[in-house]
């Protein structure tokens, strides 16, 4: 039975068309995947469905009856709930306050009852078998994946008829992802419509009944999952056939050690980490969520404190703050996990973001030479194929282009040790391919790259060597043909076997 019918949906921002005459039909009891490159209009479309932005045109029917989705409240009362990529949580409120925000259980005096709130939350967790979450903790203290779980719980608390999951698995660990996927199936079987957005084709195959593909701001194709092969799907997304996602692996590692770590320990969970990163090498880092990869990146970048010795290009260093590392050819540069808050100043222009960490390269006596700056920016925009004007605010770019700006910012510092923490998270295949090619090119130029990805398949295809973390230490190193999904997974979960 058709539950949701959207037709003629259009949205323009100034001169840019985000959506043009898109349409969508979803049925009760189905998991319906929305696929498309970044900037194809999926995000705009689901934000319109959730009432977060108002379309310029469009007709929406629920069970055949027209509905208005003018603001988030109207969408809520129409039975639509969304788990946004841009989370909708209140940082200063607790987990349970966030989940039941705006529909809390109230006492006679109109006050929120803490005990009832707790109970409702625990019931909700039990009903959907949630991975454990600590109640009573303020959301700003949670990790990205914990926040994601809270966001999911919040959407479920409305008991929606239509649930939108926008890249909801992208920040989750393996087990949680599996849990969410099976929950998605269950919810669909109970008669709901789940609109599922993910860049991981494997997941989509696992849960979706039907797919609608978006390209250049409109819906271009819709078919049943079992009637389409991967090549057709990717071709529809790109509008062309793609040669290959992963560049050929040509190890370019030199004997010279760029980054040498001995006995790195920290109170945040690192235990005796030893590691050599060679010039021209792409060293992959694998591990289940929370097993020390993040801490390693943080302590290498001087964000958190760790004991042990670190040598950069043979010189021993003490890292106290990111500033110690930014400058010069001997430095380290980082592509952080959370690109919107740590990687970019969203309200600033592409130009300002690019030169933020490298302004010393185009300034003298405290004055910026704007011609020199413009030249650096132009070169970087061209070489990375960033689809944006230099003065455009970074926040208006698509996820893939934002990530390219971060890469550009990092490369402009001239640092030759690069830390890439999940650089392809939530990025479309086209841009992913470009990023992998870029990494390969950089390694050939002698850059040393430490690369963590939450997607194992990426590690296997891109890294020359993979170090596996478990409980804060490196438990295994794989090289050459030994780098397989099977080996790495085994090493990651080894702790539980023991």
């Amino acid at each position: 039975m058709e539950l949701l019918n959207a037709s003629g949906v259009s949205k323009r921002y100034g001169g840019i068309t985000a959506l043009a005459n898109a349409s969508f039909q979803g049925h009760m009891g189905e998991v319906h995947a929305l696929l498309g490159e970044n900037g194809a209009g999926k995000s705009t479309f689901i934000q319109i469905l959730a009432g977060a932005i108002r379309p310029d045109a469009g007709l929406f029917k629920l069970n055949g009856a027209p509905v208005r989705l003018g603001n988030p409240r109207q969408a809520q009362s129409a039975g639509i709930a969304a788990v946004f990529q841009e989370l909708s949580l209140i940082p200063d409120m607790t987990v349970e306050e966030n989940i039941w925000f705006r529909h809390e259980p109230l006492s006679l005096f109109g006050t929120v009852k803490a005990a009832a709130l707790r109970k409702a939350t625990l019931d909700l967790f039990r009903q959907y078998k949630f991975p454990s979450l600590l109640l009573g903790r303020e959301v700003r203290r949670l990790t990205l994946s914990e926040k994601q779980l809270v966001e999911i719980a919040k959407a479920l608390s409305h008991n929606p008829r239509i649930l939108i999951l926008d890249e909801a698995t992208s920040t989750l660990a393996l087990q949680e992802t599996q849990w969410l996927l099976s929950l998605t199936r269950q919810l669909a079987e109970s008669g709901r419509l789940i609109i599922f957005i993910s860049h991981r084709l494997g997941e989509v195959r696992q849960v979706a009944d039907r797919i609608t593909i978006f390209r250049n701001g409109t819906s271009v194709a819709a078919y049943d999952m079992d009637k389409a092969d991967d090549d057709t799907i990717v071709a529809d997304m790109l509008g062309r056939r793609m040669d290959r996602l992963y560049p050929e692996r040509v190890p370019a590692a030199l004997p010279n050690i760029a980054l040498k770590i001995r006995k790195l320990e920290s109170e945040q969970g690192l235990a005796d980490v030893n590691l050599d990163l060679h010039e021209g090498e792409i060293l992959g880092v694998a591990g289940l969520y929370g097993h020390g990869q993040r801490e390693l990146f943080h302590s290498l970048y001087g964000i958190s404190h760790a004991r042990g010795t670190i040598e950069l290009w043979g010189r021993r260093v003490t890292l106290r703050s990111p500033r110690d590392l930014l400058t010069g050819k001997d430095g380290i540069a980082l592509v952080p996990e959370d690109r919107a808050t740590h990687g970019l100043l969203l309200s600033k222009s592409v130009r300002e973001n690019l030169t933020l960490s490298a302004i010393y390269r185009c300034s003298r006596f405290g004055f910026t030479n704007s011609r020199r700056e413009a030249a650096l920016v132009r070169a970087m925009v061209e070489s990375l194929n960033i689809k944006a004007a230099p003065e455009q605010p970074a926040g208006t770019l698509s996820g893939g282009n934002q990530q390219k700006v971060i890469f550009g910012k990092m490369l402009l510092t001239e640092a030759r040790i690069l830390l890439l923490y999940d650089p392809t998270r939530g990025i479309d295949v086209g841009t992913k391919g470009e990023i992998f090619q870029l990494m390969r090119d950089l390694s050939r130029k002698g850059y040393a790259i430490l690369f963590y990805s939450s997607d194992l398949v990426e590690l296997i295809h891109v890294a020359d060597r993979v170090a596996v973390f478990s409980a804060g230490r490196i438990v295994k190193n794989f090289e050459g043909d030994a780098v397989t999904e099977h080996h790495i997974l085994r090493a990651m979960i080894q702790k539980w076997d023991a």
Partner: protein
Amino acid sequence: MKASVLEDEDRNTREVRAPRGTSRWRKQLDERASFLVACALLIGLVAVYGSLRKGVFSFEELNLDTAAAMTLLLAASGQTVVLLRGGIDLSIGGIISLGTVLAATRFGHHPQTAAFWTFLIIAMGLLVGAANGLIIAVLELQPFLVTLTTWAILSGVALIVLPTDGGSLPPGWMKFGAASWFGLSSSVWLLIALLLFWCWFRKTRLCLAIRASGSNERSAYLSGVSLIFSDVAAYALSGTFAALASLYLTTQTGTGSPTIGNGYILPTVAAAVIGGVSLFGGRGGLVGTIVGVFIMTMIGNLVFVLSVSSYWQPVVSGVILLLAVLASSIAEKSAKRNLLA
């Protein structure tokens, strides 16, 4: 704290576990660092004051200090709500001035007229606040500028109503300030009422909505909060409290002054911030503000008993205030380090 690794195991066992005793205590300490530092500071100041003067620990002293603090306290209560929303309200200076001159010129000698004008003054505060909120929300203007202009307008009106300090209030009106029940003065009872109000208000959906809008406006909107409503409510509350502050002030001074409110604008912000309310919205509460107000009152008392010359008084209280802010910021920073781990 070796939290990350341990918690991951928790997650795999998939059960909800309460945090352990010690770490939970520690966390509470860290979460509320600036509030606790303010409390410690207040205790310290009271101790110093008590050692310099006899009879500090008595109902009499409590009554006096609360009476001295009450005007600022009422005004700062409203400011706290606006700060939670992530805004700032400068217009309370104008509302207080206008409130006192209206009371001093319009109350007359009939209790009915006085009651009528009391109602009108409160309504004036509420409407000015609501107008502030509406302008800020609908036209998307900076709260600082909007409330600065309403402050200027109200100050002007106050000067038109009463160009110089003066006027008079019915003698019965001023008795309220001196009244006491069970040994506690009216101001202490007001303080208790204020605390009860906060205990109720902070748990209402309205307060949560205001706090949420201050914490993250976009998220609050996506969750279904009407930002216009939360702005109007926050500033209307602030205006109402400012009007109440002006009425209380007249029970103490017995006159009207078209400029007296100006001295309250920044102290309301300072008191709230010392008590742990964030200038960026979303964090803090009225109890913190109350502590902040009493810290400022105590600093005033100290400067008085130390018989600092009147020229030096602002300098000395400024320095003590700076030290107070410094202490709470150091505590906050160390707490943040602990929590980030």
